[in-house]
């Protein structure tokens, strides 16, 4: 079984976002970038399935600017066999990403596609489901457990009410929740080895996908600031304020 894993390069989750003064977006120059956290879970799961003898090859793919190569390289360092970078500049909406991935799937013919459930930059939560629709494959979103069966997967999903288990035929798309596994760190020898693994570079236009945005971003602004609070001197004062001033208890 061959697994394609899609990974996205995003601003590191520990970085305080700054909105550009002209309102056109957030500052990304000289900002630490990392793999989108749940994409790390997606890679980890694929590598674990390979180690368990259930997958034969793990291919990591990213869509983005040249530097997204680092994100692919990181996936190789934790165990993916080879990488693909689809170069595309500017804002690439999930619909365009899913069209690009559709072309990659048609070429690579994986049995499974894994990716994180949501990217922590645009917070769209769309790409996996859109790719499943375009391929007419089943989708198992927000997966916290994956069990490989003969020609299907049994997937436990994190839903608002608790957990749901579904069975999806292979080929399938799985979007991964943070609870799926504990992503490993790349060891230094593996980081060195990853430098020798191949990354194929193509462009979105090679694949014939129009990436022009359909959503016009009018402005990006800071969230409304909270008005400054007060320090209370004692627990008694705190309880009195909550009861009589804020009226929340």
């Amino acid at each position: 079984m061959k697994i394609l894993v899609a990974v996205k390069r995003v601003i590191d989750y520990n970085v305080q976002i700054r909105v550009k003064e002209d309102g056109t977006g957030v500052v990304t120059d000289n900002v630490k970038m990392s793999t989108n956290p749940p994409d790390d879970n997606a890679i980890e799961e694929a590598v674990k399935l390979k180690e368990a003898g259930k997958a034969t090859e793990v291919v990591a793919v990213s869509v983005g600017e040249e530097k997204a190569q680092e994100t692919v390289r990181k996936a190789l360092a934790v165990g993916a066999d080879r990488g693909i970078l689809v170069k595309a500049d500017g804002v690439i909406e999930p619909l365009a990403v899913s069209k690009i991935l559709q072309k990659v799937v048609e070429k690579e013919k994986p049995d499974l596609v894994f990716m994180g459930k949501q990217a922590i930059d645009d917070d769209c939560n769309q790409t996996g489901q859109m790719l499943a629709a375009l391929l007419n494959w089943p989708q198992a979103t927000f997966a916290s457990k994956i069990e490989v069966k003969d020609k299907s997967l049994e997937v436990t999903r994190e839903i608002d009410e608790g957990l749901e288990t579904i069975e999806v035929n292979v080929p399938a798309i799985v979007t991964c929740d943070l609870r799926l596994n504990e992503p490993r760190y790349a060891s230094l020898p593996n980081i060195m080895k990853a430098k020798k693994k191949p990354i194929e570079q193509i462009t979105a236009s090679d694949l014939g996908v129009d990436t022009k945005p359909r959503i016009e971003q009018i402005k990006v602004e800071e969230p409304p600031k909270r008005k400054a609070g007060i320090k209370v001197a004692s627990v008694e004062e705190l309880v009195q304020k909550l009861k009589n001033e804020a009226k929340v208890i």
Partner: protein
Amino acid sequence: MSILLIAEHNNKEFKPFTLNAISAASQINEDVHVLVLGSNSDSVAKSISEVPNVKKVIHVNNSLYENYLAENYTSAVIKLAESYSHIVCSANTFGKNLMPRVAALLDVSQVSDITKVIAEDTFLRPIYAGNAFATVKSTDKIKCVTIRPTSFDPAPTSGGSAEIINGDPGDASELSKFIKKEEIKSDRPELGTARVVVSGGRGMQSGENFKLITAVADKLNAAIGASRAAVDAGYITNDHQVGQTGKVVVPDLYIAVGISGAIQHLAGMKESKVIVAINKDGEAPIFSVADYGLEADLFEALPKFLEELNKLNTIQK
């Protein structure tokens, strides 16, 4: 053109967030039609028809919809989509699973998780877990939009009498199969919707010490949250995690105990109406978002806090 809203329900009653989505939908366009895909779900269609904001209910009653599967739902929605200007549903796990599948088949770029309707094609939505807000305008012919339920008041539940018509089922999909649902049964409110959340951080020092949090949460009928640091340290399971990589919560009262206030945690709770921080480090960033800050040792403050709560005659539930 009208707006089509997809209801979330369990074949007996609709889920409460459907009402928040209906009220957001009627801000976009008053002609709101609600699609109920269910099995033996007459009571759902009936109760939705009584919501005054709803102008028409399309009820598809078919065993195909006994359980919710995005593959089956999508086909039914697509059959109706061309006669609508907007397709909307809640941005919870139900809608997040469904809407992109619909949007991709319509070749539409979806607008996710809106918190405000600015115009029928223009919306406000949080990005970077609410650390920034984007105003976006959809240029697609049909607009596929998911709605953050906690940003809109629920629509009233009575006074309306919308027409209920029977709709056609979509194609049956063989791609996926429902197996089971395990609902978390807890006397405690759910983290995402609780009125009060009490959260502990690394300052709790151990899982055992979370019993101090539990005692206060019991008293306030609150959900229990945690920072990523507390989860990573193994004090509590990660379904309690509040933050950019956990749950985003907007309770009336959020009490952060022994939480320093890392950016990724603040992203998950700073929209709460009232924030309390209890921390012995007076310089901790959590105090910058707190309405009421108490600089104190939590191991003394929490038992004292419980004691003071016990003295109150009444506590809101």
